[in-house]
């Protein structure tokens, strides 16, 4: 199959207009020695129906979360995505456009991103948001880059931060010249501390005392970076009210499908004072020559296409489409919906915690610790084996708990019913009894 519209006649005419004899002549600038003297070694082209059949059969060899009852979390969650979200984000005028360099033809994307920034600020109680980053983990990296300046260069990581995020920081840190260090004591932070990273709720689902940390860290003249869960903010105190300096999150839970890990979107929100240190696109409101309101990319002097080596980040293509989806989803939820969503996650997680810990040999990894929609259980057998055994009964029981081979992190969203939870408890019970 091909999409080029060229007929043989077109090609002939165009070559003639160029005074060329063949398509080969177009490639004269390539030195003969470098020319590929064979066809690419790929399967031959196929028809649309063949590629669809191929992809359908590949898809059918995966167990989707319609087939497995999903209690997996760990940074990606099976929240419900309302049908309006992609009916709108899928409008082709939006998804086949690119970065709005020509604002007059891009008011749709620009205004939607302005709304996205506004809602992220509402959600987090922070002063400013950008127009999206790649994902939660890279958003953390960008936040760290924002925080590090001059002598203030060290980065400490509180316990309970997702190791996947720490690994990502470590990778990028090698280039930027830092290595994430475990936070021992917030009270005795060294002079050169740039930031302390905390995740709340943390990777085990436990609620952290961010307020306390903020005090200590600010006392040391450093910044606090909080990794948050956007769907928790209908019920949990937002980063802004906790005094956090930079808030980052994986935004997938807002209107984006699981998609085996991407495309997701990174949320980042900060204080207005730091706006010029922010990475990525930022949309601002302005007026046109007639005084009519419109939107443009602004503060571009931060960005790579202007500042090049001195840019705050190298990001160019971002996750705008995912931000559009998040925008529609946030507006669909509204304040009440978001609050009820949070309530339901919390209540269902509590019920699941109760049902699962009733099972002989199953106990909480952190007994008594408050949590939101996720919690960790210790099992009488290797967690991965138990998880795999439960798969056979149609349940994805959770994800392995980092650092605890015998523990599983169980996530419960509004999608899970009481029956799903009872079913998981029964399946787990059978497996453990076996």
């Amino acid at each position: 199959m091909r999409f080029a519209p060229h007929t043989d006649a077109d090609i002939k005419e165009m070559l003639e207009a160029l005074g060329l004899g063949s398509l080969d002549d177009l490639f004269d600038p390539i030195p003969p020695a470098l020319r590929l003297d064979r066809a690419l070694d790929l399967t031959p082209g196929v028809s649309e129906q063949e590629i669809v059949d191929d992809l359908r059969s590949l898809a059918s060899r995966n167990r989707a979360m319609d087939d497995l009852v999903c209690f997996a979390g760990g940074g990606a969650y099976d929240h419900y995505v309302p049908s309006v979200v992609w009916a709108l984000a899928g409008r082709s005028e939006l998804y086949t456009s690119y970065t709005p360099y020509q604002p007059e033809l891009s008011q749709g994307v620009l205004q939607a991103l302005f709304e996205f920034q506004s809602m992220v600020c509402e959600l987090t109680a922070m002063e400013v948001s950008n127009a999206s980053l790649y994902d939660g983990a890279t958003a953390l990296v960008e936040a760290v880059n924002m925080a590090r300046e001059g002598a203030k260069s060290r980065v400490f990581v509180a316990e309970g931060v997702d190791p996947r995020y720490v690994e990502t920081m470590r990778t990028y840190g090698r280039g930027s010249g830092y290595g994430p260090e475990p936070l021992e004591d917030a009270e005795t932070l060294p002079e050169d501390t740039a930031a302390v990273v905390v995740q709340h709720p943390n990777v085990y689902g436990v609620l952290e005392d961010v307020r306390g940390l903020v005090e200590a860290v600010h006392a040391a003249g450093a910044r606090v970076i909080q990794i948050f869960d956007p769907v928790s903010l209908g019920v949990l105190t937002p980063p802004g009210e906790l005094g956090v300096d930079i808030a980052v999150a994986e935004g997938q839970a807002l209107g984006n499908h699981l998609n085996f890990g991407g495309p997701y979107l990174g949320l980042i929100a900060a204080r207005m004072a730091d706006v010029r240190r922010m990475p990525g696109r930022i949309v601002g409101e302005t007026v046109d020559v007639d005084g009519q309101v419109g939107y443009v990319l602004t503060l571009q002097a931060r960005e790579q296409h202007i500042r090049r080596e001195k840019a705050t980040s190298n990001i160019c293509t971002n996750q705008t489409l995912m931000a559009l989806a998040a925008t529609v989803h946030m507006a669909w939820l509204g304040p009440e919906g978001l609050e009820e969503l949070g309530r339901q996650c919390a209540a269902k997680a509590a019920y699941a915690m109760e049902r699962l810990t009733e099972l002989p040999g199953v106990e909480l990894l952190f007994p008594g610790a408050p949590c939101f929609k996720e919690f960790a259980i210790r099992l009488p057998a290797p967690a991965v084996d138990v998880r795999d055994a439960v798969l056979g009964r149609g349940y994805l029981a959770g994800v392995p708990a980092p650092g605890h081979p015998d523990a599983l992190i169980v996530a419960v969203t509004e999608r899970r019913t009481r029956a799903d939870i009872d079913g998981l408890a029964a399946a787990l019970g059978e497996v453990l009894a076996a």
Partner: protein
Amino acid sequence: MSTRGAPVRRQGPAEGTTIHGLSRDGRRSWSLPELDVEPVELPPAHRRSTPPALPEVAELDLIRHYTRLSQRNYGVDTGFYPLGSCSMKYNPKVAETAAGFAGFQRLHPLQPDATAQGVLELLWRLELALCEVTGMARATLQPPAGACGELTGLLIMRAHHADRGSERSKILIPEAAHGTNPASVRLGGYRAVTVPADDRGLVDVEALRGLVDDDVAGLMLTNPNTLGLFEEDIAEITSLVHGVGGLVYYDGANLNAIMGRTRPGDMGFDIVHINTHKTFATPHGGGGPGAGPVGVIEDLVPYLPVPRVERTREGFAMRDDEPRSIGRMHGFHGNVAVLVRAYAYVFLHGGNGLQEVSELAVLNANYLAERVRAAVPLAYPAGRPMHEFVATAARLKDETGIRATDLAKRLIDLGYHPSTVYFPLVVEEALMVEPTETESKETLDAFAAALRQAVDEARTEPELLHEAPVTAPVRRLDEARAARQLKLRW
């Protein structure tokens, strides 16, 4: 342009009214099941006092608001979109169909490999196909965009040199390089050193000779280069850098020019990134998502990010047990749903199909350049453009005061999305035009006529260009004010 043939319009809130402006207390779209378990109270210390002031609207408000916004936007599906360096080609709908299968869309990134064999095989096949196209040994599909791919490549260079105990500080890049190159260089912990171009618009090999030394970690280049010209001395260039133990990075933004004709690997490149949202037609999404897979030569394979898909006796597996790996570049496995679309594109076309894509992309760019060069001269008239060309309005500006941006805005009134302007920075009043292979001769002829008309008007009716656009949803926007009086939220 009269209103004849205009799209339908409807009465609605004033221009710029946000979804917030439509909000009414107590109005709602959301629905959730009745809670079927006991409610719980969160610890008071953690409870939010007042919920965030998100908009309160009905579902139909949402539908009309964002449908309306979509109508204020111009995409490839709307019309010709010749942004240089962006390969704004047709995004096949069949790829959307495939990406929508629950068997891809509803997969959790942390579900066991045994339950994800189909997607793992897809990623594996795509990796191998991209390696064949670029002439690399293996690749990572993790980077979510090109810039991230660049940084991945630079960190691989770093790890490579570190393993050889050599501390190097410089990365050479041409002056015309895309902004992400120098930005990535800094994030990679390197210093960017500029390689000048000669009067052909190509790397000045003599100057390069003077710049390469054993403090050079590597060179970043895109070929065809940012001017759309093929670096004819590329073999010499890469061997010069290899000569001092440096590595050469290929910025794949321009891969659309050469598929099946030559390969970065054959030119001596060691590391290559690919923009699937350019060459492989994954939709640009209004600014993203993309994907920036990175291929490397055999020696560098151990440094690739983890996790990586490997084929094992038990089937495909996500492996992260490679001690020399630079680590993770993304929280999970990258933009998988974008890669599914890229897979659809690659395997629909097959080898010959991809070669034809490049041939016709280059044909279109050359044809369009021919049609417009009399009106707007090419920045480097001597060279043959590949998949895109850079023209300059410098002379026009001197003669008429009309700038590239005025031409761009006038093109909007003539019904087109303008080309890239003011990039590359090394060309005054640059117009960088990449038509791509999915545009027809008729479209190219009509666009060329429009551009020529605009240039004529610069002399005859300059006010048409100064005033432009007058048919768009808004007229020229005050960007200075936007930056001065920051309004970044409602």
